[in-house]
């Protein structure tokens, strides 16, 4: 099996190299058959990497511990779903996933554009296969997922319990889909620049892939945030950690790109900017992949230094140098077709939106790489914390929300006072009204949060106004009822109304972030049974007592769980009963661990308990005081060590089971104090709700429109008529 995987990976690498040569030779020599062969190489690559990935998946599902990667990331007791997903929890597996996704997306785009942009396509193929050859080369020469151990062990060390969360399992494929999809517009931009064909066709040809990249990367970031909030036991969803920032960077520049290409499509402007943005986004996607593997920055994720750093640095260097050289050498054809007529125009607002997004990306980039920058400049490695990021990102986010309200409705070229009055009177009223309504509730003490609420109300106001006007117009034209008119409106103008939905979702999301950050109450406290504590906003939590249980699977004890029962009340009325827990997993692959102690020496994870609502989340995590229990555990280890060999295997196992059971029961009976982290956080649900709306809007945008199909059919018909007319003319002559 390992040989098959290795063989498929090597063939994939060889096919990628062949494809690059064929595509470039075909383009330079004008031999179409070589380009066709290169295209087939892309399809073959997809088939080979699919095969290699399936081999790795099978190895995980069949517990093939002869493979080092399976031994170190799975075990017999790992549930099947997590076994399947464990493939990409390793360095090697994740690189194979990267290559597989890249080859699948490349095949799709090459197939869909096979009759378009024939001059650009060979170079785009060469770039896409260049990425494939790079990752294939890493898998063949540096970190193969098919390396085997000299002696296959009976069991593996298991998947880290922290990763046993559905969102954490889906998070990497989402992120990698985003990263690899950005390679598509990057490759076509390079091709378009090489052949000096910088009209909007390469943008149109890859627009859905750009949107797909943006959606996947966004979903990946959101799942990471959700996992952090629900699984990590600290109650936060964003920490400005380098690894989080690495995924945010291409998302920010990609968002800017998706806006600015509209200006190029509509008015032939910002060509240099768009080319630079997508080249930067593609490079940042590779930088993100590199950052989590290099170990060059201190991150909460202990990504160890590996041998992959230098190849990645070379690739990123080539991408930057090549991008700069291409843009500079093509500046004559990248010249804008129109000038900016007025600062009060849609194109000016889009440009401002781009500057804000790129400004945000610069802040995040600077903060992320500041340890390296400061070390290079001063000799001392220094790092920046969340307050520094907030100082810059919050005002920029305010500007972004404001622009998201102005941009979609202001007129192209030049807005007149009449246009401004017509479009902004009601939204401004909504923003001002929101401010006035919120001031009595004490929001004025947090001016940035208040500004965010007002700007979000303004942005939502413009969007609602656009929907209302559109529905009214359809009703007047067709006589449809309002719900049908609403749906038809979206269906017939997916790009426009999908965009509005995205903006609506962003406003909701930012309101959630502002409210949960500015008005959060965090309380860390140790409580004895029966004790109560104020946790903020008038809520009280009472520790009713400890809980304990043993989770077992068909293969034995999965984990010991120690928890607490908390009653939350407000104004003497019970609001919720929370049962936060902490699970202790047995240590795997540690033959010298004590018989009892091994059940406490493995990983432990919080199972938070939360009462979540649209208005407020009451979040709790517990750290049980196991010191008295661990003292007994030590004695138990000594007893079982002495009993080893004197008892039959069955008696030993029964005695051990009884001991574990009595330990967990005693914990619940003895009621030791426990430490709680209690958070009252308003409107966190708005973040998840807003994000869902954003991605719903993205899906609406990406869905093919009836108009597009109609245009294609019409264009096909027109071409046929033209051909027939062309044939008819000589006869007439």
């Amino acid at each position, binding site marked *: 099996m390992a040989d098959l995987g290795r063989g498929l990976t090597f063939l994939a690498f060889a096919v990628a190299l062949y494809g690059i040569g064929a595509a470039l030779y075909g383009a330079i020599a004008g031999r179409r058959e070589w380009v066709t062969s290169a295209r087939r190489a892309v399809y073959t690559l997809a088939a080979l990497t699919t095969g290699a990935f399936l081999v790795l998946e099978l190895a995980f599902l069949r517990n093939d511990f002869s493979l080092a990667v399976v031994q170190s990331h799975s075990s017999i007791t790992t549930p099947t779903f997590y076994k399947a997903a464990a493939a990409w929890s390793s*360095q090697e597996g994740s690189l194979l996933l990267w290559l597989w996704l890249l080859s699948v997306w490349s095949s799709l785009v090459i197939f869909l554009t096979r009759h378009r942009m024939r001059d650009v396509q060979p170079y785009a193929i060469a770039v896409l296969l260049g990425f494939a050859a790079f990752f294939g080369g890493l898998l063949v020469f540096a970190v193969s997922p098919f390396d085997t151990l000299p002696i296959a062990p009976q069991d593996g060390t298991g998947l880290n319990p922290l990763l046993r969360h559905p969102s954490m399992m889906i998070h990497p494929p989402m992120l990698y889909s985003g990263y690899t999809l950005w390679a598509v517009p990057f490759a076509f931009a390079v091709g378009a620049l090489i052949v000096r064909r910088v009209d909007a066709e390469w943008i149109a040809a890859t627009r859905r892939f750009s949107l797909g990249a943006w959606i996947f990367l966004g979903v990946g970031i959101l799942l990471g945030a959700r996992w952090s909030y629900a699984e990590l036991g600290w109650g936060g969803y964003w920490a400005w950690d380098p690894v989080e920032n690495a995924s945010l960077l291409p998302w920010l520049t990609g968002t800017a790109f998706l806006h600015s290409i509209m200006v190029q499509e509509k008015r032939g402007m910002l060509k240099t900017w768009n080319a630079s943005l997508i080249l930067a986004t593609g490079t940042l996607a590779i930088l993100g992949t590199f950052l989590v593997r290099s170990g060059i920055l201190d991150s909460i994720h202990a990504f160890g230094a590996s041998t992959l750093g230098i190849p990645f640095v070379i690739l990123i260097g080539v991408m930057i140098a090549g991008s700069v050289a291409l843009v500079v050498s093509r500046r004559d054809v990248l010249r804008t077709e129109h000038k900016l007529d007025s600062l009060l125009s849609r194109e000016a607002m889009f440009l401002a939106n781009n500057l804000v997004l790129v400004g945000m990306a610069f802040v995040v980039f600077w903060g992320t790489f500041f340890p390296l920058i*400061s070390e290079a400049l001063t000799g001392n490695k220094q790092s*920046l914390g969340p307050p520094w990021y907030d100082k810059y990102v919050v005002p920029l986010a305010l500007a972004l929300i404001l622009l998201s309200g102005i941009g979609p409705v202001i007129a192209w070229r030049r807005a007149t006072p009449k246009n401004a009055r017509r479009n902004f009177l009601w939204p401004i009223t909504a923003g001002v009204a929101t401010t006035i309504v919120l001031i009595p509730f004490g929001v004025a003490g947090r001016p940035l949060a208040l500004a965010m609420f007002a700007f979000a109300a303004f942005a939502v106001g413009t969007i609602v106004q656009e929907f209302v006007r559109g529905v009214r117009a359809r009703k007047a034209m067709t006589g449809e009822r309002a719900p049908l008119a609403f749906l038809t409106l979206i269906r017939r103008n997916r790009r426009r109304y999908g965009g509005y939905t995205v903006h609506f979702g962003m406003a909701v999301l930012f309101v959630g972030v502002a409210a949960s950050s500015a008005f959060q109450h965090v309380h860390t406290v140790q409580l004895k049974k029966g004790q109560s504590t104020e946790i903020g906003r008038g809520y009280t939590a009472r520790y009713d007592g400890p809980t304990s249980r043993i989770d077992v699977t068909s293969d034995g004890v999965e984990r010991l769980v120690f928890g607490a029962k908390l009653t939350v009340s407000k104004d003497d009325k019970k609001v919720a009963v929370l049962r936060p827990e902490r699970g202790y997993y047995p240590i795997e692959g540690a033959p010298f661990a004590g018989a009892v102690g091994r059940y406490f020496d493995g990983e432990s994870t919080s199972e938070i308990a939360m009462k979540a609502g649209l208005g407020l989340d009451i979040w709790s995590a517990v750290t049980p005081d196991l010191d008295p229990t661990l003292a007994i555990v030590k004695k138990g280890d000594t007893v079982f060590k002495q009993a080893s060999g004197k008892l039959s295997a069955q008696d030993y196992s029964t005695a051990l089971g009884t001991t574990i059971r009595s330990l967990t029961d005693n914990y619940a009976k003895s009621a030791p104090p426990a430490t709680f982290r209690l958070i009252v956080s308003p409107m966190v649900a708005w973040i998840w709700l807003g994000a869902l709306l954003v991605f719903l809007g993205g899906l609406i945008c990406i869905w093919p429109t009836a108009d597009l199909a109609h245009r294609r059919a019409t264009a096909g018909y027109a071409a046929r008529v033209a051909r027939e007319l062309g044939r008819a003319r000589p006869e007439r002559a």
Partner: protein
Amino acid sequence: MDPARKRRVRLVVALSAAVVLAAALVYTSFSASSEARSPSQLLASADPGRTYQLTGKVVNGSIEKHGTTYEFRVRDRDGTASVPIRYTGSVADTFRAGREVIVTVKRQGTTFVGEKDSLVTKCPSKFQEQSKTQKT
């Protein structure tokens, strides 16, 4: 005003604003940053009252818990030099002896006091250095 001149003025104003903002960003990043140090570097020199970002591994058997306060020692990643830490606040699930941690500290006498809720334990989950297990 001549449209070309107007555009030039706009460009100069925009570029000037960008330069001012970039300068502010650079300036504040140096003044707001904490110096990253290893335990041996802190032992060599640490000014009282100054904030440092300490990175290292929790020494085996050193963790003591008093209510919500933790006392433990952090050692160099690849060495034995260690410093005592007193920390109050939340700890991640992954916090335990032998784990790599990052904590913002200030020197108080011979002890380093951690800033509340600043302790992060590195996630041991992914892409760690290749294991020493022999592979074929």
